[in-house]
Structure formats: C-alpha cells, structure tokens
C-alpha cells in the first residue's frame, strides 16, 4: 500500500519534471499577481504593509486554483484514471499520493517564494516566518479541498469557472485565518490561535477530503 503511494507520487513528480515549462507556471503567476498590486495601488510602504497578508494569500489561493486542473485532467483524458480506479489498492491512498504530488509541485514552491514577496510588500521581518508557516499549513488544505472540486468537474467541458465557483467558497476559512495570522504577527502579537486553527483544519481536510475525492472520482468515472 505504501509502495502504491510512493510509486504514484514518483510517477507524478517525474511527469511534472518532464514538462518543465509548465512546472513553474503557478509560481510565476503567484509572483506576477502579487507584484501587480503595488502598480495598481501605490508603492507606499504603509499601505502595502497593511494589504500584504491579504494580497499574498489571495494570490496563493488563485494560483493553486489555476493549477488544480493538472491534478486529474490529464489522467482523466488519457484513461489512466480508469486504471487507477481498477487498482487493487484503496483509491484513497492513490488520491492522497496525487494530492501530495500536487502540493509538492505548487504549494511548496509558494511557501518557499513567499519571503521574497513579503519583502516586495514590506512585511516586517518578524512576520515572514509566520507567513511561511501559515502557507505551509494552509496550502495543503487548498490542494486537498481543491481535489474534491476537480474530481467533480473533470468531466465537464470548460469547467474552469465552475471549478472556482465550487472551490473558492470552501477556501474562505483558510484565507481568513492565514491572512490574519500574518497580519497579527506584523503587529508583534502571538499567532498561536490562528496557527492551531489552520493545523486543525489541515488535520480535518487530510482525513476527510481524500475520502470525498475518492467518492467523487467514482461518480465521475461512471461515464
């Protein structure tokens, strides 16, 4: 079972690295959107500092959303998804492997590049750590919950807008607590509560979302 997990994870990572030009897209999108804000508002430090947590978190949300398609779309179209579903291994484990690969390819790079963007938007140094930590706890939830959305819409033609309509409302708690953690940390206050909440949501998503995704995939496969 563990082998099935690691083999699938390795396959997805290998596939992603074979088409390297697509690999960086979510990351570039993330940086691009964040750097649009100073241009649209004003490059004033105090204004940007206030907006920074929200801007960074909303951009992270959007770039994860845009990358969700590659979670199942390709596999659905070329029939590999059928083979996964005909595996003697539990589908939940395979879903978890795919989500894990997706997070490693999109969420993790966002976490790593966040300090740079924090600097762009004058986030105080002491809040940078919290920014990374909040993204580290929050982005896996985005991948996990997003997986449910994609698996429901993967068979729909032009399902992009539909996917955002389904998924974005479910992202709101993560957005609120993630952005607030950074905001509060900028004022030098304790963010234990916020991070604990994000951790709790992550634990919940980790235990329930793969189940829901597996059910959703079985529904979609019934074509």
């Amino acid at each position, binding site marked *: 079972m563990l082998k099935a997990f690691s083999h699938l994870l390795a396959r997805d990572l290998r596939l992603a690295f074979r088409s390297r030009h697509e690999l960086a897209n979510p990351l570039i999108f993330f940086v691009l959107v964040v750097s649009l804000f100073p241009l649209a508002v004003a490059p004033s430090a105090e204004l940007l500092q206030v907006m920074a947590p929200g801007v960074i978190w909303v951009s992270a949300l959007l770039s994860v959303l845009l990358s969700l398609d590659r979670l199942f779309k390709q596999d659905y179209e070329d029939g590999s998804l059928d083979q996964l579903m005909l595996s003697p291994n539990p589908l939940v484990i395979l879903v978890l492997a795919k989500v894990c690969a997706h997070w490693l390819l999109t969420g993790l790079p966002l976490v790593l590049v966040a300090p740079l963007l924090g600097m762009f938007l004058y986030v105080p140094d002491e809040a940078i750590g919290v920014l990374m930590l909040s993204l580290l706890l929050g982005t896996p939830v985005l991948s996990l919950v997003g997986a449910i959305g994609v698996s429901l819409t993967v068979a729909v033609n032009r399902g992009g807008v539909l996917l955002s309509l389904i998924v974005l409302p479910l992202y709101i708690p993560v957005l609120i607590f993630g952005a607030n953690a950074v905001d509060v940390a900028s004022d030098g206050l304790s963010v234990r509560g916020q991070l604990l909440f994000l951790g709790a949501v992550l634990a919940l998503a980790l235990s329930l979302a793969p189940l829901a995704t597996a059910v959703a995939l079985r529904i979609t496969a*019934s074509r």
Partner: protein
Amino acid sequence: MMVEADSAHTIPLLETRQLECVRDDRLLFSDLSFTLTEGEILQIEGANGSGKTSLLRILCGLRLADAGQVLWRGEEVSVVREDYYANMIYIGHLPCIKGDLTTLENIRALLDTRSQLAPLDEIEQVLALVGLAGFDDVTSKALSSGQRRRILLAFLLLAKARLWILDEPLTALDVEGVALVETMLLEHRLAGGSAIFTTHHGMQLPCAMSTVTLGRAGNQPC
C-alpha cells in the same frame, strides 16, 4: 474432491444478473444475464451506440448498473473488489499512455497501479514479443498510435490477469498486430484464462467462442 471440482464448475468466474443500463434517457439494454467460465472467451456484439462500452465499464465496476448485479466467483463485485481487481484487467479505447514517459516507464507505471513488479528482462522479452524491441527508452510521444497500442498489449501480458476485458483491442493495429492479439487470446485461453471483448473488425479465433449480442433497445420508452 469430487464436490470441490463440482462446485468450481457451478460457480462461474463472472456472472451478470438482469443488468440494465440507461444512458441519456435511452434504455441501452435490460435483463441482460450471462455467465463466463474459466477458459471461456466471450465477444460482445452490437451496433454503434448499443452499449458495448457501457457494458464493459459496468463489468469492471467503473460504471454503476441501473439495475442488476455483476458477480465475481459468486460474490458481488463491489464486495470483493480487491480480489476482483487483482485478477482482472481492463483495457479501454483510451491510450492510458503518458507521452512524456518512455515505453519502459509507461509499462512500469501501469504495473505499479496493480502493485505488480516485473524484472527488466521479462519486460524486454514481452516488448520483443509485441514488436517493440529496442523501443524501451523511447518517449511515447515519438511512437505511432499502433505502437502505443502495443505498449498496452505488453502491459496486458505482463499483468498476468485471469480475466481480460478488452474494449476494441484491435483499434489502430496493423495486420500483424491483429494476428498478435489473436494469438495472445488463444494462448491466454490455453492457460485457462478468460476474456471478454468487443470489436468491429472480424476476429477469427480457431476456438470455441461465445457471443452476447446487444439489441437495439434504444429510443424505446422504458
């Protein structure tokens, strides 16, 4: 001993009972019951849109029948899913092949989903058999569609499943490829395996073969 042998005969490998399939408000088939024993080869016949692919997907458990049951060795497929999937292989008309992976990697990836390992020399042997000798490190987007189909044939052989469910296995194959599939089916049967397949090409197997014909129930009020 006698009793055991007897019961092995009375419980078929795969059995369907009163299957019904509705698609886009059309009744494709209903009350479809048939059995498949070990070593039996079964062809599903029917015109376009008569529900052949839907039937195969129902047999695999990918699609839910609107009524009826599919039994694997006498038990409902959804109950014995793990055992069923370890012994059954389904190849649909989608390629299942990743263009960015090499032939070898594609085969390994497909076998991995079944949790099966195959030593390299065995894979090479089978690749030679399906006419892909020397292609093992070529990325699949460089292959023709017939060659990609042959990767699936290699997968089929390496998986060593007892039941093959093949949807249009002859698609994109040349004359040699067709002959290859025919030999594969024959040898599979000799080894005691069973197969269910659909095809639009005439397939001549010099052995007993049962058929199930899907009628044109379409457009009728249910």
